[in-house]
């Protein structure tokens, strides 16, 4: 294995920030049950409260509006599960409206709900991943319970019009959720500006460890827990407080707030350097996603004539970590549904590579990829039947 590791898969997960790691190590002995009244419990409780404030502050929420969860997927499932709660009893609202490019924790979950009598309307996106707002408006009605629109797409980085969707949702009396897992920590997110009722975020996308996330629940909004059996989180999510995870997430949120403005510019410049470098060095490639409204570090490129898993694994042999929308990498026979929904044919979808840059990527990393990738594409294309 190559000694040099260039990690450009930060949309899949991020490494733990050194600052976060430091705080984790300093606080690992905070073992008390934060629900306990005694000293160790109060210490844990204070740490949890402190972190809750930091997470709230990052997204413009009040601390009591933050519920810690096991991650983004739990947060998303919790919101979708509300459709079965007594909130919607006798309201005639049994429909969820969402997009065709949501993360599987929304996209696949709503499909399981249809088996239980819930109706789901999927809204199309255009060729760059922008939500078709006219379609969304046309899909609204007084039978809609929840509208869920992701803030930024994990595969292509396109930023969706969540506040526009929220206006439409609220105009017909539906609740508004956004899966902001890819956005929080990378771009400014303000729950009041977005006017959402629920927002999901995940620790390991912003340099905290796996297994910790949060759900924003707007004050005054009716709610029903997914996980029962304890009074934690003001009765909104049972389970002993994950002291270490919560402290880590709070620290990561504080770090993100402090570095975001600078980091957006820096990562954006690296992404642009990578994109322009690839366009100059590799013929016949296409860039996917809306390049004007996009996460700063995300670059999705199709290399027609070169199958994505082959590209990924040749890059891996050079120590470069990326991901692909090719079917072969997943074990299914279908390429990424996100890319397919953009209207990309199978050839472009199977040949797509996602580079997702993060806080620890450097100009040298980008230049290393620009040095190693073009010969790989050339090699694969030379043995291609296309």
């Amino acid at each position, binding site marked *: *294995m190559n*000694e040099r*590791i260039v*990690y450009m898969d930060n949309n899949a997960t991020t*490494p733990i920030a050194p600052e976060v790691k430091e705080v984790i190590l300093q606080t690992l002995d905070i073992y008390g049950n934060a629900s306990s009244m005694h000293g160790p419990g109060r210490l844990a409780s204070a740490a949890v409260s402190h972190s809750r404030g930091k997470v709230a502050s990052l997204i413009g929420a009040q601390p009591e509006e933050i519920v810690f969860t096991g991650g983004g997927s739990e947060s998303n499932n919790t919101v979708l599960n509300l459709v079965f709660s007594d909130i919607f009893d006798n309201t005639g609202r049994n429909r969820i409206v969402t997009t065709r490019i949501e993360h599987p924790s929304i996209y696949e979950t709503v499909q399981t709900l249809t088996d239980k009598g819930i109706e789901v309307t999927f809204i199309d996106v255009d060729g760059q991943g922008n939500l078709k707002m006219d379609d969304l408006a046309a899909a609204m009605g007084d039978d809609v319970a929840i509208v869920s629109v992701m803030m930024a797409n994990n595969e292509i980085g396109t930023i969706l019009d969540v506040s526009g969707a929220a206006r439409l949702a609220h105009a017909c009396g539906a609740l508004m959720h956004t899966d902001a897992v890819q956005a929080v920590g990378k771009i400014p997110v303000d729950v009041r500006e977005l006017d959402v009722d629920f927002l999901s975020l995940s620790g390991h996308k912003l340099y905290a460890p796996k297994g910790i996330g949060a759900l924003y629940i707007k004050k005054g909004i009716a709610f029903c827990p997914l996980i029962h059996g304890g009074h934690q989180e003001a009765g909104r999510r049972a389970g002993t407080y994950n002291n270490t995870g919560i402290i880590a997430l709070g620290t990561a949120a504080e770090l993100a707030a402090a570095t975001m403005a600078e980091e957006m510019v820096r990562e954006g410049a690296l992404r642009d350097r990578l994109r322009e470098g690839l366009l100059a060095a590799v013929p016949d490639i296409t860039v996917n996603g809306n390049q004007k409204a996009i996460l700063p570090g995300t670059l999705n490129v199709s290399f027609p*004539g070169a*199958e994505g*898993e*082959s590209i990924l*694994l*040749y890059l*891996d*042999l050079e120590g470069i970590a990326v991901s692909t929308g*090719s*079917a*072969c*990498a997943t*074990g*299914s*026979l279908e*390429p990424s549904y996100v890319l397919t929904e953009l209207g990309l*044919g*199978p*050839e472009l979808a*199977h040949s797509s590579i996602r580079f997702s840059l993060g806080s*620890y990527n450097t100009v040298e990393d980008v230049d290393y990829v620009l040095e190693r990738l073009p010969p790989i594409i050339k090699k694969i294309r*030379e*043995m*291609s*039947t*296309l």
Partner: protein
Amino acid sequence: MSSNSFIQEWVYTDVVKDHFMNPRNILSDPDYQEDGRGLEGSLACGDQMLVVIKVTDDVIVDLKWKTYGCASAIASTSMMSEMAIGMTLDEAYHLTPSMITDRLGGLPTHKFHCSVLGDKALRAAIDDYLERAGRENPFKKSVAKVICECKNITDQQIEALVKSGDVKTFEQLQEQTGLGTVCGQCKGTAGELLDELMHLYGK
């Protein structure tokens, strides 16, 4: 970041890695004078394979290939090319995916599908060679057609099950053979075949 020792192992075996990094017998000469040519697979599934052969006295004296495919497809076809050169047409026609994957030291189960295209394209090339030579094809009927590539279920096996009365429905076929339970891509073909066989033998 440095890598730790427990992640040193690659996704595939060392043999697969070697054939992936240094694929053998790639077709690079645009003027290659082939005696037979086989093209299999489709873009929709992300794998396409071209095999060309030269034949002397019913022995494959040279074989070249190209693919639009993943690492497993590249490695297995590279291995297949090494195995097939020097074989008689008869031997080469009966090369199976599992013979190739055995030599590769195995492939992950969900990757088996990717490895079958190479020998399919080889058989197509041999068919093409015989057709060009105006000769009868003694092999085509000798090999059963694989319907479910993942579970390696042939048309002949399905026919036997229908004839014996053990299988009457698609569900029974799946229960008894596992057909169509991995990637599911064969369900359409298998369903049509079952309909046809039930029409002939089913009571």
